[in-house]
């Protein structure tokens, strides 16, 4: 128990912070209800996938600067493929776009291995390439999305046996998020591959000596990052109904949430839960500031300051750890 607390202490603290924020929200806006929580869940969705994408590579000891660009590219690809197409066609588009994210992510990893250029430079270069590709797919926001996909993240699902009062607090967007992340993350976490990802992030040398295929594992970590980013791109298209070629603020947000979520930028440590809770925290801060009618640019300052402070704090901790 004590070990669980020690290990999950950071996440527990974040949860507590989230609860406090919810209480504050309720105080500012006594009418804050299940519908508003649904809005929060939908706002969280693309950020959560972005941060999942970042988390995998950071755990593997890397960083991915192309997350937001990957989301933009997958988003415009999905939106332009579905434009004017039938509802059923989307059944093909979704796996196609996910596979595309996976493959392009793997390209990131392969380039890092083959060129031996540091990950930060490779993914920066890929940021431009993916952005450019997104602009070639759609030079302006547009496209369309199948209705059933939109429906997938709006409203709630009636869960038999659950009273409506509880059910109302389970927005579909949240369920989609949980299902998509769990389907990939839980088996991964339990598999040898998952262990290998932690292992190369923790100590590449020890991992190699333990028989971990380091290069292959690194490529797969980037591929998974691409896959999560593709989920994020799809989530964007599902919530807006269009694809936008200019990347949103997801790169910085993902780094901020990763660090805030207790994943060390050095690799090997942390999980997915912390960063996801961190995303909820950051989004709820924005909601609260809007409820208080504070200039949204102040929110940008606060988000930036949280990020810089947390990254500095994280760097400070790593520095102390190294000494």
């Amino acid at each position, binding site marked *: 128990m004590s*070990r669980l607390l020690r290990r999950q202490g950071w996440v527990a603290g974040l949860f507590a912070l989230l609860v406090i924020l919810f209480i504050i929200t309720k105080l500012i806006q006594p009418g804050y209800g299940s519908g508003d929580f649904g809005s929060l869940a939908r706002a969280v969705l693309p950020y959560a996938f972005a941060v999942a994408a970042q988390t995998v590579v950071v755990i593997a000891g890397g960083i991915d600067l192309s997350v937001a660009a990957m989301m933009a590219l997958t988003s415009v690809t999905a939106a332009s493929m579905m434009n004017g197409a039938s509802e059923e066609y989307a059944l093909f588009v979704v796996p196609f776009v996910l596979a595309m994210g996976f493959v392009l992510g793997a390209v990131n990893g392969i380039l890092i291995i083959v060129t031996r250029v540091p990950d930060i430079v490779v993914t920066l270069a890929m940021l431009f390439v993916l952005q450019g590709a997104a602009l070639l797919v759609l030079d302006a926001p547009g496209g369309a999305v199948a209705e059933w996909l939109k429906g997938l993240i709006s409203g709630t699902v009636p869960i038999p046996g659950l009273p409506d009062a509880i059910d109302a607090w389970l927005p579909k967007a949240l369920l989609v998020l949980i299902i998509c992340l769990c389907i990939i993350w839980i088996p991964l976490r339990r598999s*040898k591959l998952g*262990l290998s990802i932690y292992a190369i992030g923790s100590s590449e040398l020890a*991992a*190699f*000596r*333990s*028989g971990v295929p380091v290069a292959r594992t690194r490529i797969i970590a980037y591929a998974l990052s691409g896959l999560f980013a593709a989920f994020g791109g799809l989530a964007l298209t599902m919530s807006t109904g269009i694809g936008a070629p200019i990347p949103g603020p997801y790169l910085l947000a993902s780094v901020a949430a990763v660090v805030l979520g207790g994943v060390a930028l050095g690799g090997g440590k942390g999980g997915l839960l912390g960063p996801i809770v961190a995303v909820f925290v950051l989004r709820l801060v924005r909601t609260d500031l809007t409820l208080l009618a504070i200039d949204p640019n102040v929110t940008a300052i606060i988000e930036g300051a949280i990020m810089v402070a947390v990254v500095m704090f994280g760097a400070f901790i790593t520095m102390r750890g190294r000494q």
Partner: protein
Amino acid sequence: MTANPLLDATGVAKNYGAVAALRNASLSVLPGEVHALMGANGAGKSTLVKILTGAIRADAGRILIRGEARDVRSPAAARRAGLLPVYQEPSLIPDLDVLSNLRLTGTPVEPFRAWVRELGIPDLDIRDTARDIPLAVLRVLDLARALAVEPDVLLLDEMTAALPANLAEKVLEVVRRQGDSGRAVIFISHRFVEISALCDRATVLRDGETVGVVDIVPGVEEKIVELMLGARIVKTHVAARGASRNAATGRPRLGVRNLRVGTKLNDVSFDLADGEVAGVVALEGQGQDELFSALAGSIRPSGGTIEVDGQPVKFSHPIDAIRAGLAYVPGDRAEALAMQRSVRENIALPFSAALRNWGPINMRQERARVVSAIERLQIDTRAQGEVQRLSGGNQQKVTIARWIAADARTILCFDPTRGIDVGTKQEIYKLLRELAGHGKSVLFYTSELEEVQRVCDRVIVIFGGRVVDIFPVEETDEPALMRAAYGLPRGAKADVGILADPTANISDSTTPVAAP
């Protein structure tokens, strides 16, 4: 033991750039045998283990496993071939718990647990994260993990070095039984007690080459020492010390009192006088790295004091040490040099360090100082545009020239002749003596014992993080230094029996030795 060898390696070579870690190593291990692999620090033992277990690739050589040529390309392949190593450094993934580490390597959990108990750790929680486990226990876990898969050949690289006596004993027991059950163990250790208690035969490496295979019989230790040291054993003093020996007069230039650094350095005290070269003698990892780093201001001591000219000083950055006149020349030249910069910039680097010197450089003055240092050390400047194009020896000279140019009063030289040719070595010896002649003081660690006699006035022997002896250089010869370095009392001359004496402080349980 006429069986075919389980493992047979011949002609193994490995180069790291200019450094030849292995030149021509061979090793043949029979079933049921515990085979010692011996050699001085840097002889290539670990490198050979890494090659045999696929952790690095050899440049040349042939490896037969059960008589078949095998190309072991990765640790996983070695494992499949039945070769399991316990490397000199712990190999568990620091951020994973023990159980996950087992899963990662496909190690069966129950046998592992059994071995851990057997090895004297009854209460291991396999949910503990490796990072939180003490080093000694980690070493045991590494071993248990290897044993759990019942390897044909177990390779143990300084397995017992970090263990307290009780755990070491268990390990020796277990290893012995491995041999008895028909498997083979390759056992690396600097402790002769362990070798004679445990091993059947020993292969001795010197400078990357196999120089002998001996059966372990009483009295063989002297022979092994001989093999390990080679021709050097008979060297006598050559040092031409003309300088004044005023170590006893006046305040010492540098005083070290009860210095402690973490667990690596315990209670070290000594003095260094102006005009003196003091040699530090120690096996690898006895705390000398920490001592030099602390004196250089690179790490902060956890206790004790450092005095310069009688004044206590506290260093929080190398600049503090430099201001106090202590200049550090690290053993690894890559650590000291900006490889892509010119010889001149590297030598002049300390000039610009202080804020007030950030402005325009007086090029003429700088040039004069740099040129004079270059001439003094006779640095070959044909490729001076980038230090990385210099030969190793010349690079080493640049690291020293910097402090000659800066006119440092005390130079802390850590193994400055590593990988350097004989001629250059002579120049460096001469230079150090000259410095002493000009009243400078030098603290000099070398991994080549012979140099101590050539250069030093006094010898400071460190073992297990403590100063075990200090004596004038005249009172010693190389075998005596060797013994001293191994923590054996002086005076116990060539009495081989003592090498096997289990009561000697070699296995003192408080001694954390030979960490990587």
